[in-house]
């Protein structure tokens, strides 16, 4: 049997005891334990009062009893407003930034594109409470929307727009790398090219961006505190104030003594919704990728 030992005993000793690696492994275990603690805590405490009644009835006694149905409706309405604003503006901006319409011809155009990118980068880092301040001053007061689902949804739209644009830009850019030259060489118009080739090819990426924006919006609390408001009645129009799930969690936990159990249940609903969206997206993404790669049916 050959002997591969080098005789560098010092080195071999150091190699035999990678303390650092053990420590690093320990941090991974710690990380898993902490998040496990958090999630299990929410599941155990939240599961108690979770029932179909809870989902489908209105809150009573300031939320200590009853359910969250109006809160779910308000959340859905806020998200719908948000995504309805994000999609067209985001798609348009992403199409321009991704270079589908060609590189900017003048240095002014180039500077405008760079400026747009930098501004979006900073926008992605602006604290959500600042979006709340802005939404309150601009949508609620300046545009006269008051505390409303409309104002809240539009505030969220400002906040998640950069996430959507960044993902969509990336998806369109990689679709363009493959198909832009081919399309132009056939003399296709940009409208045809986008509609028939680039948008379908970029669809998985666009969808991922959509979902990222959606989940960020769903998780947000601070930006909504003083834009869409606290009212937990069933909203009757988009101009009504409405309380979303995360604000409901906050309010029950902080402002309602004895609201903890219901706060946990609402938090669990929120987390389950997010998890389901993510799992669905992963499955759908897998299916799409196969379809796009032309795997035989």
């Amino acid at each position: 049997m050959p002997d591969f030992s080098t005789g560098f005993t010092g080195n071999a000793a150091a190699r035999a005891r990678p303390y650092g690696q053990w420590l690093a492994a320990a941090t991974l275990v710690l990380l898993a334990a902490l998040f496990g603690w958090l999630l299990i805590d929410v599941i155990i405490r939240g599961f108690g009062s979770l029932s179909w009644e809870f989902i489908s009835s209105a809150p009573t006694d300031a939320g200590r009893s009853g359910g969250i149905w109006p809160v779910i409706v308000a959340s859905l309405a806020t998200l719908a407003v948000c995504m309805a604003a994000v999609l067209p503006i985001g798609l348009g901006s992403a199409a321009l930034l991704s270079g589908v319409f060609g590189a900017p011809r003048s240095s002014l155009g180039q500077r405008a594109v760079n400026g747009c990118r930098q501004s979006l980068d900073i926008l992605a880092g602006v604290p959500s409470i600042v979006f709340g301040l802005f939404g309150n001053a601009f949508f609620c007061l300046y545009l006269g929307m008051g505390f409303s689902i409309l104002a809240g949804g539009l505030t969220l739209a400002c906040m998640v727009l950069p996430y959507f644009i960044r993902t969509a830009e990336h998806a369109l850019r990689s679709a363009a790398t493959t198909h832009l030259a081919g399309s132009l060489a056939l003399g296709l118009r940009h409208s045809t090219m986008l509609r028939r080739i680039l948008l379908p090819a970029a669809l998985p990426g666009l969808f991922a961006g959509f979902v990222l924006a959606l989940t960020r919006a769903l998780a947000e609390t601070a930006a909504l505190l003083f834009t869409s408001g606290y009212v937990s009645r069933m909203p009757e129009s988009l101009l009504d104030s409405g309380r979303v799930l995360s604000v409901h969690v906050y309010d029950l936990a902080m402002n309602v003594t004895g609201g903890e159990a219901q706060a946990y249940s609402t938090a669990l609903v929120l987390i389950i919704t997010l998890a389901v969206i993510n799992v669905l997206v992963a499955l759908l993404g897998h299916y799409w990728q196969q379809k796009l790669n032309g795997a035989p049916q």
Partner: protein
Amino acid sequence: MNNSTSLASSALANTALRHSPKGHDRWLFLLVRLCALLAAALLLLIVAFVATESGQAIQALGARLFTDSGWFPGADASGQFNLTPMIVGSLLVALLAMAISLPIAVASVLFVHSCSQPWLVIAYRRAIELLAGIPSVVFGLWGLVVIVPLLGQLQAPGTSILAGALVLALMILPTIALLADSALRAVPNELRLGGLALGLSPWRVVLRIQLLQARSGVIAGAILGLGRALGETMVVLMVCGNVVQLPTSIMQPIRTLTANIALEMAYAGGLQRSALFVSGLLLIALVVALIWSAHRMGRGYA
């Protein structure tokens, strides 16, 4: 020569004109530019509105915003408007959270990469991506119900800088880990293989070669994580106690800039409202400075 290049006389040019699209594309070009303009103008709009609203307080109070004897705000200048305790509180909580979070995040990423198991790296990445999506209010709730009572057993009341920092650290951990992971992923595989070919252990390769190459990305990630911690509202609002004071120990409650806005915005008017917008402006300035320095670190992971 002139005659032959004149477009109107050429059959090719006629073709070109006949096929000119029915205004369809031109509208699309315009629309797309408009969208991008709107997106780019959003930041300016936000800064403009926040600055306009804070104008009243800055004009009426000036340096008093940092030198007054405390925070007892009112609608007119007779109140006291010192933002300093809140600024100190924000910085303390965020820096402490960063100090806890960064080593754990980086060490766990390094370990995962050192195992050379593709499935582990992918599973880790998926898990971290999912955890990064947990709403901050859920962290706040957990902190309020679980962590604060635990710390309260050590020293009452439990709502404190430490409570905020611990929960915040957990919240920003996935963000830092994701950015560290992308920085490590960007290191060319040849470097790793080269190290392994010299007989170095995978751990050593990750630590001495990959981390060294990826350090600017890791630092950029840390800076952006700090930005998230500074800008976070719900966690600090729920677990830090919201007492306006300059703390002398990390077991004392404090109030941050963000929590202050969330607490008082609902009923504030006049100078008080304007002073809250000043704190918004301060937050924007802090974040812009952080993002700018993260970009300076060489990678645009903002």
